[in-house]
């Protein structure tokens, strides 16, 4: 049976209330009659033989690249890079897709007599993964074969001895990436294409880059001109990565790109109701909702967080392609759209979103206020093709408690960013001029990034820049249930209920605005016409 596609529901009097995420809890929310709810397509079926599909992709490459076995030879230097903890969301049940792909690549390498193999987590400026996280992503067999010998590395964007400058693009962008990866005879990159902006040239050009290189596209100007990060033709970020990727290729770096899509089977059995349509909830779903929402509301915050962060998604491999970067990426992006795309006709005055407990940057961590903004205005707002779901001058209403809580080990510079930068300005351009360099070059942050498990000092700026397209596009951002002082610090407005928020939105969108709710997760991408 084919899964049902995504669709847009119009709320009438008989529509049951809709599930609304509020960070580390969720509830049911009645939306005004006439509102639209955008539902994600149902998850596609899992591949029956994922290992077979992976082997098949490695031997039948896409685009102008040889089969993997033809690229492997004894005495060569092979480097396998892989996406970090930020993907997929939530983390998937073992075996992780990275483990499956890397085991297949290693089997081939062993057959070909390759013995100089290094694995690198492509962190860019993300935090280093912990041993349990690495074991989960790679499987203990791979971990134990590489880590004890120093052959499992995490990319260090601040280690000059392990970076190489390959040149400048015709736009004057420095391309500086991981030296071991660049100097290998073959660089295999293992992607998880959770959303359309993942993968392609971004994998190497961003995931393995230095700060010096990243700053050319991770800045307010580029990010603001990336209308929909998910839709390549209108994304400046994409263009910059493509220029850099082509330079990397022209420098002689031989990349064998492996990209994968997972289905959007996001929640395990006990939480399946979270991805079902409310009117189809059975007795079991209703009981599970009642029990879990009550438990999360009553549990101490730390416990609620642990319960949710402990969720492992039953994601399954749906498609896999390997070969030349651009050709592979084109195919995979089409698959992502097929799984996540929903046709939405016409923009709305108000978009509402319930923000869940997790974003790419707080796996096993805390979703701090900056990440709240980023999930709503960076991630979800930009999940469109054509034009944003909400019209220019419209209003975004987010549901999230937005507490001033931070993970001191993972997000140390976020605390300073919140206390120092945001008390002075929320303008991405002003903050980039006034503060970015101090944060990016701060020796303590660099130390924590390199030796601890901290995001790079500059990372909160990138999160904020990512919101800049939405902030410019919208006339107002309202957070329902958010800590008022924190919400104000972010430059947004806080409301206690949806009704309050709608009242506050009136002066921007009039007395009878159109409302569209994004029912996500599971992830969806709006094809707005």
């Amino acid at each position: 049976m084919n899964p049902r596609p995504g669709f847009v529901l119009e709320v009438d009097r008989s529509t049951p209330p809709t599930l609304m995420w509020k960070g580390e809890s969720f509830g049911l929310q009645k939306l005004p009659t006439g509102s639209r709810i955008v539902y994600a397509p149902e998850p596609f079926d899992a591949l029956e033989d994922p290992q077979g599909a992976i082997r098949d992709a490695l031997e039948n490459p896409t685009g102008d690249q040889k089969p993997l076995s033809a690229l492997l030879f004894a005495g060569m230097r092979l480097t396998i890079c892989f996406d970090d903890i930020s993907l997929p969301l939530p983390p998937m049940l073992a075996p992780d897709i990275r483990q499956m792909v890397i085991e297949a690549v290693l089997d081939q390498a062993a057959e070909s007599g390759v013995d100089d193999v290094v694995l690198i987590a492509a962190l860019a400026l993300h935090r280093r993964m912990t041993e349990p996280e690495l074991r989960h992503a790679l499987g203990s067999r791979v971990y134990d074969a590489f880590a004890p010998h120093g052959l499992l590395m995490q990319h260090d964007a601040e280690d000059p001895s392990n970076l190489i400058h390959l040149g400048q693009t015709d736009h004057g962008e420095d391309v500086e990436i991981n030296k071991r990866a660049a100097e290998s005879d073959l660089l295999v990159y293992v992607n998880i294409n959770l959303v359309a902006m993942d993968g392609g040239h971004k994998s190497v050009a961003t995931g393995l880059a230095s700060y010096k290189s990243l700053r050319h596209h991770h800045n307010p100007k580029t990010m603001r001109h990336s209308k929909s990060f998910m839709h390549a033709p209108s994304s400046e970020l994409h263009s910059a990565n493509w220029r850099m990727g082509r330079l990397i290729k022209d420098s002689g770096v031989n990349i064998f790109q492996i990209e994968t899509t997972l289905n959007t089977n996001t929640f395990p059995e006990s939480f399946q109701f979270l991805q079902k349509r409310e009117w189809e909830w059975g007795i079991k779903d209703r009981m599970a909702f009642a029990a879990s929402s009550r438990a999360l509301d009553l549990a101490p915050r730390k416990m609620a967080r642990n319960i949710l962060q402990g969720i492992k998604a039953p994601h399954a491999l749906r498609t896999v392609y390997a070969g030349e970067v651009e050709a592979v990426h084109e195919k995979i992006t089409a698959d992502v759209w097929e799984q996540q795309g929903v046709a939405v006709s016409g923009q709305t005055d108000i978009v509402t979103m319930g923000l869940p407990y997790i974003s790419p940057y707080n796996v096993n961590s805390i979703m701090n206020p900056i990440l709240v903004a980023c999930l709503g205005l960076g991630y979800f707002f930009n999940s469109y093709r054509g034009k944003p779901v909400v019209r220019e001058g419209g209003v975004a209403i987010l549901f999230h408690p937005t507490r001033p809580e931070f993970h001191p080990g993972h997000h140390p510079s976020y605390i300073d960013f919140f206390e120092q930068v945001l008390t002075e300005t929320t303008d991405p351009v002003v903050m980039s001029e006034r503060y970015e360099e101090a944060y990016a070059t701060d020796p303590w942050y660099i130390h924590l990034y390199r030796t601890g498990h901290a995001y790079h000092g500059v990372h909160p700026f990138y999160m904020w820049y990512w919101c800049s397209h939405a902030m410019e596009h919208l006339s107002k951002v309202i957070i329902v249930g958010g800590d008022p002082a924190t919400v104000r610090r972010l430059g947004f407005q806080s409301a206690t209920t949806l009704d309050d928020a709608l009242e506050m939105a009136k002066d921007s969108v009039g007395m009878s605005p159109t409302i569209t709710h994004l029912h996500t997760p599971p992830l969806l991408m709006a094809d707005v016409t």
Partner: protein
Amino acid sequence: MKALIIERKVSRFAAARLVSSFGSGRGAALGPLRLFDTPAPKDLGPGWFSVTPVLAGICGSDLATVDGRSSHYFEHLVSFPFVPGHEVLGVMNEAGFDAFGDPLLEGDRVVLQPVLGCAARGIQLCDACREGDVGRCQFLNVGHIRAGLQTGYCADTGGGWSEGPLRAHQSQLYKVPDALSDDDAVTIEPMACALHGALRAHHSGSSTVAVLGAGTLGLGVVAAFAFLAATGRSPRPSRLIVGARYPSQRAVAKHLGADEAVPTDQLARSVRMATRSMISGKSNGKMGPLTGGADIVIDCVGSAESLKESLEIVAPGGRIVMIGMPGKVNVDLAGLWQREVEIVGAYAYGVEHLDGVTVPTFSLAMEMVAHHHTGTLVSAHYPIDRFEEALAHAGAAGPRGAVKIVFDLGRKKATEKKEG
């Protein structure tokens, strides 16, 4: 005349200590301070004049005394019973002379430089007093008047918290310029302390200065750096960061010229960021000591916690200036030794040496008060009858959005400026 008086009654000091644990200034209710009808102090001889207080401030050291929290160190530097109050604006009841030997007329407004040094005591001037550096006088309990480091701690002179006259020595008297309001004038004494403390920092234009605490003294220190820079007397510190508990204090600190004014628990974070230091030790929830830090920390609190924090955020080779009156503290000084940190006291005032010019701190303070109009820091006036309320207000000034609380000795009704 009505005056507030502190007597030596051990039981009352003990009661005050107990009560004040519920909030600074609360000791007034049960403590050693009582309102009496009392004769005016006797004439103390040539050079002494009768002055009637107009406004008298309540300062942190007064609260400590009233609450029974003062260090035993001061036992030999006070004489009981005494009328407190050393931040005094008054009027001359007779013609006289000021500290420079210039004539004063009856009715002239004067502020008291309250130190009772060698000149006031009628003895041969000690080395410090000869230089005008009265704060460092070494003979505070000898001479023809009884012990007392300042007016407001001496049994013979009277003090500011009194409706009737006190006795002031010529060496203590400074004429108030007409341009200063009464509120401005009553802040001259605390601003002189702040100015002296700021100058004890020996900062340069490349110094990062952290100020801990933003009551009258902390805000005064910020004002002092701004004033010294504006008048070309010393460079602005490269960065001036203030840790203040209350939002109103942070707003005033910024207004007076702080680059950053952050909540107290954010000061270490801010100093780290500004000085690009690392953090040593574990960062489990709380930050450990900085590996670098501020060149100068000005501790305007004077508690064990504030000194500990000062030591954690001061740079190696740096300097901690203690302006807030400390007492007995239990602090680990290993870092001070290993990092060659200096801790210096900054008590009162005397003379300042600026570019080879020696000028009394009080004269400089008057200029600074005129520059900033620090009378705006006076938040409420109380009649002496309502001293319990006044002291409670002073003890809770920060949380109530207030800075300086004063007694208005001519008035019968309390007035409070609009807060916020």
